[in-house]
């Protein structure tokens, strides 16, 4: 089991690899509570974002059930006008939530960095 410090280290490594980093958190899916979190913007409430994103992941899992899809959820990408949000499942009960400025990076870099620094973490 990774400690909060391990998770913060992983966030720091992702931040170093990805331009336009806004915020990232490791989130407990069941409760929506953050296990580790870092935000570079005071107006970006990461606690609230993490909690509501946990609901979104749960809903997506329900949709997969309803569609009888016999597979697993790997990640979810959300493209906003000026931001990229990525949710990557780390374990069946934990996910990474990541947000970056669209102008500072691209989807390929984000996915590569997140995968590289979270594989085998938990």
């Amino acid at each position: 089991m990774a400690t909060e410090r391990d998770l913060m280290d992983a966030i720091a490594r992702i931040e170093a690899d990805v331009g336009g980093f806004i915020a990232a958190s490791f989130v407990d899916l069941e409760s929506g509570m953050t296990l580790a979190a870092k935000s570079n913007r005071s107006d970006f409430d990461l606690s609230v974002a993490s909690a509501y994103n946990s609901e979104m992941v749960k809903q997506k899992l329900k949709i997969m059930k309803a569609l009888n899809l016999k597979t697993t959820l790997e990640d979810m990408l959300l493209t906003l006008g000026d931001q990229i949000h990525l949710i990557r499942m780390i374990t069946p009960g934990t996910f990474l939530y990541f947000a970056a400025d669209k102008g500072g990076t691209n989807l390929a870099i984000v996915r590569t960095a997140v995968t590289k620094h979270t594989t085998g973490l938990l």
Partner: protein
Amino acid sequence: MVVLDPESDCVVIRVVYDGPPEAGKTTSVRALAGSLGRPVFTPGQIEGRTVYFDWLDYTGGLFEGHRIRCQVVSVPGQSSLAPRRRALLRTADVVVFVADSRREALLGLPGYLQGLAGILSGVDPPPVGLVVQANKRDLPGAAPLDEVRRRLDDAALRVGIVESIAIDGSGVRETFVFAVRLALDRAREQLRSGRLQSERPRVGSGEELLAELKDAEGGALDLAAADGLRHTPLHEVGPSLAGQALADALAHEQAAPRPMGRVWRPAPAEEQPPRAPDPAVAGGLIWPPVNGRLILHETAGLPLRLERGAEGDWCGTAGGRWTVQAPAHAGFGDLERGRTALVDWARIHSASGDALSSERCIALAEDHGGGWRLWQIVREQESLRDVLERAEAGAPAEAARALAACVDHFLEAARFFPRAACRLPLTLAGVAASHPRAPFIGLMPAPAFVRPPEPCPEPLARDLLARELGPHLARLLGGRDAILEALARLPLHEGGAATDLLRERWATS
């Protein structure tokens, strides 16, 4: 204590940090506050020691669409302030017990935890979860985790254990999130049973809690706080606190017997071991709700190798402490059918009451490929068969005592097992050796094979026992005369039943 605050649309839960003096309660709460970026309110400290409590308020996460507001409170550890500690513990939805995990500090741990369990047993159901935060893992003399677990076994409590070094924050946030999950399991049970109140929490801030405590105490503890504050080693406070608390303890509510479950469709045969449940199993899919998650938390940290049984079940041992089994014919293609089966099976467990050992849980976990599977996890305990096998290698007097105890326990179990909600297999391997009421310690019948209980009259029980004892008596045949002689020396109420049975059995062999 969990309430749904309509004003803020938050579910309000209270996480209470308990533990012996100087174990790291305040340090943990402060480390948590630092990690969450929240202030701590600590009224009336004396010489750096907590006199009332530490208070931390944090809102995060979601429960059934409502934000979760956590009131984190630590108690004072000094024995002179025990009434204050008890008052705070009685408001808990989950308790994080911060324990100094150095060997010398572990000595008094079981007594202290039993005292805590006594206090918590007075809280209205559902039960309050308990997480032990094994602290000071960085210090020389920190006991290995297995040793900490053995100490906790002595307290006969179901707890989750998380390691920490509170002084640098390691493990503190993980412990907190795990504790919140247990509190939410409790909240979910309250919601399900219609007992989740929608109202403003009685206490909304540290200042309000302070005022409430002062009102309740009427100044009675101020003198103790000012004058009697002193370092109290764990081994000194354990027994007295345990005694006080246990005197206040109340019996848990017992669920009423419910009807039997249905017979389920068989799962398709497969060779890949299924995915065993872990602590991330969703709320509502574990029974019992709080203690079940604690058991999953422990088993998830232990090595487990599952093997396919002859009956089609998957079974294994987690760390030599727990038997983990996925019964045959208990796989489901969709969640709702699995949940229905889980509820039916939980009702059977619940209605079986004391006939079953208490250290067990059942869960519905997602399997490979999107299916769902029922699991049962049962604590391994010494059985009558274990006792006999050990006695076979010992002296005749030891074998005589073991045989006498086995006969008594087995016949007691024959009287007791039919009180369960389903038929329990009566075997030497399934009856606990250490418990006076001889509960069933084996695996519950697979859901598809549940049958109604039947009375077991004594002649039938004696026949069953004779059959079960057969292989053991054959191995003990060489020492027959010495064993019978030793049995004759036991008081009649201890050895009488065994002597009759053995004489009869050996006479015919």
